[in-house]
């Protein structure tokens, strides 16, 4: 019997090719979309949860208690050694200094580490599960050793068999490869590709002062202190011991300002204050979109199946007359559904694998996602398959229940377009329109974020990073930049406006000896900073960088924060800026217009502009016009002469700013894809519907033509229903979209305002798509000769 049903199902599916194709592709797209989103969510939720000890691994984070809590992670070398010696509840502790930028020389080829290098020791591998494929972990405790992941070893050497080979760091220090690490696990925020031994940090990083090792205040956000505890519930005890250590070895006053805490490693990925801040809401949004799209595809299937009653009712009537029971007929429908959704599933796998590779290449770029284990992938596939089959056989079963043999055979049981089905179509298009509005708004907002300069000018600026070892040649660099006629202005600086890492510290203002309870941000550069970035000086003068007592500029927000309204009144006042210049008290010499130091996700903060050469990391170059490629060529050649052991590296400033909005840009791309998918699926739905509706109304169309209706009149007749559905869907989706999107926009400090054209555009897109979709078949139907359609069989 099953075989018979299979044959019937296959013949039926191949007979109604168009409907089958529309259904299969619609379902396949939706399933692929769900599989993809599921993979993405599982990957994100699994960050740092795969370590054996993950429930008892912690990292040190701290809050600086100012007017607002300032959160940061990382600690100092001294703190790390003290924890190791003095807190018994700690099983293992390591210092993991990640995101290191070094230049490596391997077989006379130069490589930048691009932040993939770290310093740590063998204990790191006791805490985290990154298995060694070759070599002895303990050797990483020796100086001048390095362990590489398999992938990077293959990239550098062309093979993973590289134990004992030498890598030159900064072309000065030879280090030996002692281990190869399995890097098949990628979802960790605490993994690097190149692990140098912590014992060699002094030489390789060129650390001259002992304070790096002894001074408790020598903290850095990338100096992560990771530890595993014997018992996870001793966390608060360890936190207390940590405070005691600070009081004992550093100073008890420090505890007035700082609060030290332990953060569970798996929490880091979603933590907004200390961690990466991956939004869980993004995962929820994606999950809902996935289910929504799947729902849309199911609605298509249900609608097409029910509309096919026209063809199917006769067949079902005959089958009943031949003695088929309801159960048997239902089984037939179910097998058909299972078969169709299986084909869709197989197609979806294909689409998924294509989309997966494509997404890792173009969508996630720096954060490629990983496949989930085959077992759970098959499980979720199976679940989707059966879920769809179940959902889509509800309708046919209802239909069978109602079917009377007599009416069936006489084709009286034409698909009745009842309320439920109409609702389904409207609902389906509401989802699509919601996503379209979402796309319009999100794209506008991300574009706004990426392209808005608050108080500065980004155009025609290049940023070239300059490392510590390169400053010896600063004068030569300065000379050749000055001599280049294509360069309008250049500035050695730490942070250009709109930068991801911005320093700050509290200040003593005027004659006060008290530190303020808030910390302004610092924009650190030389005196060309203003001209290079086009920042407006409102009052006073630009600072002179060569004064022993430093000169500072402040922005308007800072002026107001200090309680002044007139710029003139504050000029000449004293300012001690902690961290910017700890030796000397300086003077405020001018006030600049507000400009953003951070991304536009944060409001403009009180800002001090000043000079501190030890913090410089970049040179920013403002060039004339569009001659960037010629300029880059020249600079690259000059760089090679100056720095034969360095790779010439540069960023276009506007691209660097755009990079601040990676998360938003990802959301933008994802919503684009989701909206396109949903439109495709509703187009499929309409294509299927219009063909059925035309088949059903053939006779009516013929009669109307005989009575004198024009082709356009027939088209209007057919289009009317569709337009009505789209309009109702629009009316449903618009307020929901307005609500959700204004919520979403509220989270941004600077955002666009929702305006009517975004909604009108959505409506126009909806109606145009609909008309285009149904036009071909409708006109064909309108042009049919009534003689053919009215002939009685």
């Amino acid at each position: 019997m099953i075989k018979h049903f299979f044959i019937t199902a296959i013949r039926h599916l191949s007979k109604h090719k168009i409907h089958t194709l529309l259904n299969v592709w619609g379902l396949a797209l939706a399933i692929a979309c769900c599989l993809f989103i599921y993979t993405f969510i599982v990957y994100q939720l699994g960050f740092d949860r795969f370590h054996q000890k993950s429930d008892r691994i912690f990292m040190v984070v701290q809050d600086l208690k100012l007017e607002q809590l300032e959160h940061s992670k990382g600690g100092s070398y001294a703190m790390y050694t003290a924890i190791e010696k003095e807190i018994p509840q700690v099983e293992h502790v390591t210092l993991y200094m990640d995101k290191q930028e070094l230049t490596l020389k391997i077989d006379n080829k130069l490589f930048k580490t691009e932040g993939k290098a770290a310093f740590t020791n063998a204990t790191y591998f006791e805490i985290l599960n990154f298995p060694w494929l070759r070599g002895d972990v303990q050797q990483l405790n020796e100086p001048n050793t390095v362990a590489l992941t398999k992938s990077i070893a293959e990239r550098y050497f062309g093979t993973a068999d590289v134990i004992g080979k030498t890598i030159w760091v900064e072309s000065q220090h030879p280090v030996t490869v002692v281990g190869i690490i399995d890097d098949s696990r990628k979802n960790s925020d605490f993994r690097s590709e190149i692990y140098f031994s912590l014992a060699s940090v002094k030489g390789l990083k060129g650390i001259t002062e002992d304070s790096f090792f002894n001074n408790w205040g020598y903290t850095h956000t990338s100096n992560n202190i990771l530890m595993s505890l014997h018992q996870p519930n001793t966390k608060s005890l360890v936190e207390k011991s940590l405070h005691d250590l600070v009081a004992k070895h550093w100073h008890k006053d420090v505890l007035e300002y700082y609060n030290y805490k332990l953060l569970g490693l798996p929490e880091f990925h979603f933590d907004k204050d200390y961690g990466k801040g991956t939004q869980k809401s993004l995962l929820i949004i994606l999950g809902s979109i996935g289910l929504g799209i799947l729902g849309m595809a199911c609605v298509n299937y249900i609608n097409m199946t029910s509309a096919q009653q026209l063809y199917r009712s006769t067949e079902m009537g005959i089958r009943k007359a031949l003695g088929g029971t309801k159960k048997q007929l239902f089984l037939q429908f179910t097998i058909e559904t299972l078969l169709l959704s299986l084909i869709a599933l197989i197609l979806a796998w294909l689409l998924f694998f294509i989309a997966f590779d494509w997404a890792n290449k173009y969508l996630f770029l720096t954060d490629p996602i990983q496949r989930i284990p085959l077992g759970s992938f098959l499980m979720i596939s199976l679940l989707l398959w059966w879920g769809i089959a179940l959902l889509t056989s509800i309708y046919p079963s209802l239909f069978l229940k109602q079917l009377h043999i007599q009416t069936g055979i006489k084709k009286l049981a034409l698909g009745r377009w009842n309320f439920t089905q109409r609702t389904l179509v409207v609902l389906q298009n509401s989802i699509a329109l919601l996503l379209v509005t979402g796309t319009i708004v999100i794209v506008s907002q991300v574009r706004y974020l990426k392209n808005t300069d608050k108080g500065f000018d980004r155009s025609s600026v290049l940023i070239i990073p300059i490392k510590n070892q390169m400053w010896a040649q600063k004068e030569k660099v300065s000379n050749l930049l000055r001599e280049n006629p294509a360069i309008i202005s250049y500035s050695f600086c730490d942070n250009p406006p709109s930068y991801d890492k911005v320093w700050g510290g509290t200040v003593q203002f005027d004659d006060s000896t008290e530190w303020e309870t808030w910390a302004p941000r610092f924009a650190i550069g030389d005196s060309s900073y203003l001209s290079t970035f086009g920042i407006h000086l409102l009052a006073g003068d630009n600072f002179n960088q060569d004064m022993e007592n430093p000169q500072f500029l402040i922005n308007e927000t800072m002026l107001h924060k200090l309680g002044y309204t007139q710029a003139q009144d504050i000029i000449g006042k004293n300012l001690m800026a902690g961290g910017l210049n700890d030796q000397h008290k300086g003077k405020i010499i001018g006030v600049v217009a507000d400009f953003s130091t951070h991304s536009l996700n944060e409001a403009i903060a009180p800002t001090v502009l000043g000079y501190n050469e030890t913090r410089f990391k970049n040179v920013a170059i403002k060039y004339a016009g569009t001659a960037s490629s010629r300029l880059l060529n020249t600079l690259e050649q000059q760089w090679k002469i100056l720095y034969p052991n360095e790779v010439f590296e540069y960023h276009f400033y506007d691209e660097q700013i755009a990079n601040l909005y990676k998360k938003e840009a990802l959301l933008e791309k994802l919503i684009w894809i989701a909206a396109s998918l949903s439109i495709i699926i509703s187009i499929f739905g309409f294509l299927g519907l219009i063909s059925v509706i035309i088949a059903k109304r053939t006779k009516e169309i013929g009669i109307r033509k005989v009575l004198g209706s024009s082709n356009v009149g027939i088209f209007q007749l057919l289009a009317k229903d569709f337009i009505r559905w789209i309009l109702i869907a629009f009316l449903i989706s618009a307020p929901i979209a307005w609500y959700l999107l204004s919520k979403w926009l509220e989270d941004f400090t600077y955002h666009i305002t929702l305006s009517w054209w975004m909604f009108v555009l959505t409506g126009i897109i909806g109606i145009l798509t609909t008309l285009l979709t149904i036009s071909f078949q409708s006109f064909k139907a309108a042009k049919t000769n009534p003689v053919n359609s009215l002939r009685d069989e």
Partner: protein
Amino acid sequence: MIKLENIFKWYQVGGARSFVLKDINLHIEQGDFVSIMGPSGSGKSTLLNVIGLLDEPNEGKYYFMGEDVLALKAKKRAALFQSHMGYVFQSYHLIDELTVYENIETPLIYKNLSSKERKAIVADMLDRFGIVGKKDLFPSQLSGGQQQIVGIARALAGSPKLLLADEPTGNLNSKQGEDIMSLFKQLNEDGVTIIQVTHSEKNAEYGRRTINMLDGQLKDI
């Protein structure tokens, strides 16, 4: 074999009842060949459907082989239908997606016969109606007469005691119609009870007796 007592069937039209069958009393013996005649709308198809269990009367009693059919549960009624009745339609109603072979096989599948039994019965049917050569063709590849022969073969596959035919020759030309009717006569001589609805006097003459209907009532027996 069949006994109908005071069968009524009506539709509610507005406040009034529009009768399709009005007080039908009918007795049909095993081995009979009955032709039901009458103008369009006289209720003959409805009567056939009531006898064939495809439709239910609003009132009255129906005994089939001594059983009170209308009192039976749906499942038992379906079983009764499967084992004793075969139905032939005016427009053949073959399933388009199935071949001749598979069309004949379908009722046997619903009866849960094993594939071996089915094979034997279908082969027998194909042979008996001389359509062995057409077994792999689809309905659309056959002429109307051939389709109706397949329809009859399908109706007889379950070896029913009663064959119900609703205008079996209505869509056929006269030559094809004659073939079908002589086939019916042959079947009846082999022991199958047949009830057919027809318009044509000529066809009615193939039967052993004729029932005339008008406005839902039997005119004479």
